């Protein structure tokens, strides 16, 4: 069956630009999570959604980062005024209900030049 998909797989942008990263969760999964993995580190929690609402956004590093999930399925992570330090792999995961056992997508590798 189809797993979690993320687009694009790679994104190169210039400092100061705006980017959007998309996540398509497994069909029927109500919970959706975003993580960021920098080089040599483990994934770092950013935000999770239960349905359409952000249930925990405590991991978003600052107000340049924003995520939406308007219909309770696809989610978009939006980063404004990108900085070189935002370069990382952005991972999306989903689960049937809120769970620690999450299904991860392959990630979007973001490079800010």
């Amino acid at each position, binding site marked *: 069956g189809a797993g979690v998909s993320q687009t694009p797989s790679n994104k190169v942008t210039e400092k100061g630009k705006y980017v959007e990263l998309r996540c398509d969760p497994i069909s029927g999964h109500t919970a959706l999570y975003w993580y960021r993995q920098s080089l040599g580190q483990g*994934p770092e*929690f950013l935000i999770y959604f239960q349905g359409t609402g952000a249930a925990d956004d405590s*991991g978003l590093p600052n107000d340049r980062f924003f995520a939406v999930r308007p219909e309770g399925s696809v989610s978009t992570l939006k980063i404004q005024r990108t900085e070189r330090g935002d370069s990382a792999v952005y991972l999306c*995961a989903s689960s049937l209900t809120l769970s620690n056992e999450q299904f991860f997508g392959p990630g979007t590798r973001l490079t800010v030049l």
Partner: protein
Amino acid sequence: DQQVKQNSPSLSVQEGRISILNCDYTNSMFDYFLWYKKYPAEGPTFLISISSIKDKNEDGRFTVFLNKSAKHLSLHIVPSQPGDSAVYFCAASAYTSQGNLIFGKGTKLSVKP
């Protein structure tokens, strides 16, 4: 300040022998622990978990041990196979923030034929 620590960046084991991956944590609020496995260019895959009310959980070749007093857990793989070669992440979650996983930096396991 790392709440979940994997102090060995890499481990090399002979095929058929036991692999032991270690993880330490500092936050006493953590009550659920997981191991994820990651191949290159893929997202992490859930492997095995353990609740803080248990001290051992076994699933086939994989066993996780939890020592709450030492704030330490370990993953045992017996027998190790070349296909087990991957990066293994330890993760933890607190009941008050379920779904918000705190990951270690990972240990790269190489199983040599």
